[in-house]
């Protein structure tokens, strides 16, 4: 009976004795997204944090622009820009301790970079030289996940494992509004809540899944309202307000770290660029809508707050911009170098040890390449 005794007290009881398992009220999000900047609420925020956020936002915007430019030069296979969403990307990175884990989607190279990853490494997948350019364990950044929402159960499992090991580690997982429709989103949130795993889910609701607007994605009052169905708190935040996103995430991370379990955070933001460089957003949205969002730009909102409170002046802005330019120049230069690739590596990591069959295939490819080299060798060159 040991195991049965360990089980929760919640046994099935007939309706006269029936009790809801948790009180739903505290789990429900507010009707309006939480905002800080320009509301006076930022007064309590740490000025150093605000300045740090600002520098990262500017750097992030520049990074997005540079990466997009690199697609035009054929240096990236594809780039899904997070321009307009920098507040979410940056806050997600800064809110974590070093020991914590970040689970990015394909759009979140900026979050990885803001966490300290080398931008060139972060862009490896999108450049096309390999699928991941960094050691996830070294940086505690999971590989960028292309299949939507599939990274969410990974984050839950990792957070759960850390908790079982007694480690004080939180996982933060990023997903888009479109990704919330996938079964994996549902299963991940449910596991997280049942296991009380120390994980935070940040949905960047940027209004679109490629061309499909939110209204075609869900009929819910908000995506944050999904939380109650898992028994976890749902929070709604202005995703362009870096201070607000940081605050809400910090609370959720602290809650998770303290053993309180997962939180679902919906950040309302907007994707200012097309889905990727390969997309043509004029096919599905009016430019006037994009323009309307410019007034609510994350950099603008924070700049306004910082200037108003005398925490930032022209010199400060210039310094931040210059630093961002340096990063961009360095990125440009390094991305313009061709990576060194060994086709033999194709067979190296499929298994711990290549199978006999893979060794044969590697030898075959080597022979082909040698023959090719012979063929193309300048006349008279002996091999």
């Amino acid at each position, binding site marked *: 009976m040991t195991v049965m005794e360990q089980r929760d007290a919640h046994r099935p009881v007939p309706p006269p004795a029936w009790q809801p398992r948790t009180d739903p009220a505290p789990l429900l999000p507010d009707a309006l997204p939480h905002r800080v900047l320009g509301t006076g609420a930022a007064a309590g925020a740490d000025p150093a944090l605000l300045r740090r956020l600002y520098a990262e936002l500017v750097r992030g915007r520049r990074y997005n622009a540079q990466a997009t430019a690199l697609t035009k030069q054929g240096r990236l*296979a*594809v780039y899904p820009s997070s321009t307009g969403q920098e507040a979410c990307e940056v806050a997600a990175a800064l809110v974590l301790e070093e020991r914590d884990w970040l689970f990015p989607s394909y759009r979140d190279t900026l979050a990885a970079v803001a966490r300290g990853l080398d931008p060139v490494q972060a862009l490896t*997948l*999108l*450049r*096309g*030289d*390999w*699928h991941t350019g960094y050691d996830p364990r070294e940086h505690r950044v999971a590989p960028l996940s*292309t*299949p*939507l929402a599939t990274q969410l159960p990974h984050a839950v499992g990792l957070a759960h494992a850390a908790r079982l090991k007694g480690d004080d580690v939180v996982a933060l997982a990023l997903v888009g509004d*479109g*990704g919330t*429709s*996938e*079964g*994996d989103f549902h299963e991940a949130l449910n596991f997280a809540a049942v296991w009380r795993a120390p994980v935070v889910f940040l949905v960047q609701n940027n209004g679109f*899944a*490629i*061309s*499909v607007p939110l209204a*075609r*994605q*869900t009929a819910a009052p908000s995506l944050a309202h999904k939380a109650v169905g898992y028994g976890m708190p749902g929070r709604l935040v202005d995703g362009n307000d870096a201070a607000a996103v940081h605050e809400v995430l910090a609370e959720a991370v602290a809650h998770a770290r303290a053993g309180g379990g997962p939180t679902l955070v919906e950040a309302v933001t907007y994707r200012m660029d097309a889905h990727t460089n390969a*997309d043509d957003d004029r*096919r*599905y949205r009016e430019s006037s809508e994009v323009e309307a969002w410019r007034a609510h730009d994350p950099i603008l909102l924070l700049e306004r707050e910082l200037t108003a409170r005398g925490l930032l002046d022209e010199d400060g802005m210039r310094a931040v911009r210059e630093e961002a330019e340096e990063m961009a120049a360095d990125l440009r230069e390094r991305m313009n170098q061709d*990576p060194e*690739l060994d*086709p033999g590596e*194709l*067979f190296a990591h*499929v298994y711990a040890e290549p*199978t006999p*069959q*893979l060794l044969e*295939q590697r030898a075959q*490819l080597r022979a*082909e*390449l040698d*023959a*090719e080299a012979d063929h193309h060798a300048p006349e008279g060159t002996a091999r």
Partner: protein
Amino acid sequence: MTTVALKPATMAQALGRALRDAMAEDPAVHVLGEDVGTLGGVFRITDGLAAEFGEDRCTDTPLAEAGILGTAVGMAMYGLRPVVEMQFDAFGYPALEQLFSHVAKMRNRTRGALPLPITVRVPYGGGIGGVEHHSDSSEAYYMATPGLHVVTPATVADAYGLLRASIASDDPVVFLEPKRLYWSKESWNPDGPQPVEPLGRAVVRRTGRSATLVTYGPSVPVCLEAAEAARAEGWDLEVVDLRSLVPFDDETVCASVRRTGRAVVVHESTGFGGPGGEIAARVTERCFHHLEAPVLRVAGFDIPYPPPMLERHHLPGVDRILDAVARLQWEAER
């Protein structure tokens, strides 16, 4: 004889036209998938359908592949003829349970009472510089699942003809679109294109006497190129385009192999466990005493699809095909 006005067209255009004609002809045909409406699909195959037939006939679904295929099952149960688009091959995997456990089995489950005339369009294969998960070839999964037809065109005309026939089929069809051929242009008669009936017939794309290349989809043009190049080596290669992996056209393939006595199966999907094993095995079972050499296979390596900068090493190319042909034991030639 009427004169036929041939015009250059891409496979993408032919597929779009097939959808349009099918929808115009039969109000039961509904298109659903991610971004198939306003955007016209990320490959623009469904471009214009929502505008012409309305969003109820060409519907942007929520982003959930099991949901798309699962609701298509229900729509088919009510008499509609859904055409589902999976955005990329690997993004169809969330729908595999619906595909294997329901789509493939419903007719059988109900003793024929509930056929599911669903077409699942899947852009497949590599060669387009796509990042991870955008270049899979998953045909082996579908082939191993009784109850599904598995069809794949290699030409503009077949893109139209096979898609029309697939949509018209009362059975579920996994329709594999070789995405790197989407933009390949051919001369085509846009005024009177016809469905390919019946499904399940391979076609000889090039006749030859020395050996048969058995292939399909994206590898067909590569094999034709290899056959041209092989002339320099003195080989006259026949090229069979399967068009339908299920049902499999044993007759056409075996007739060719019996004639030539040698065969190489060529596809992009991984070799081990890929379609080539089945093809080689059944050809050998049926043509053993006509074979001068074992049926060889040229396929993608047994590795996850490589990153863009390395994919050319993975894809079966002309040289690799010719190497295989060279290994067909010509020394034994009488």
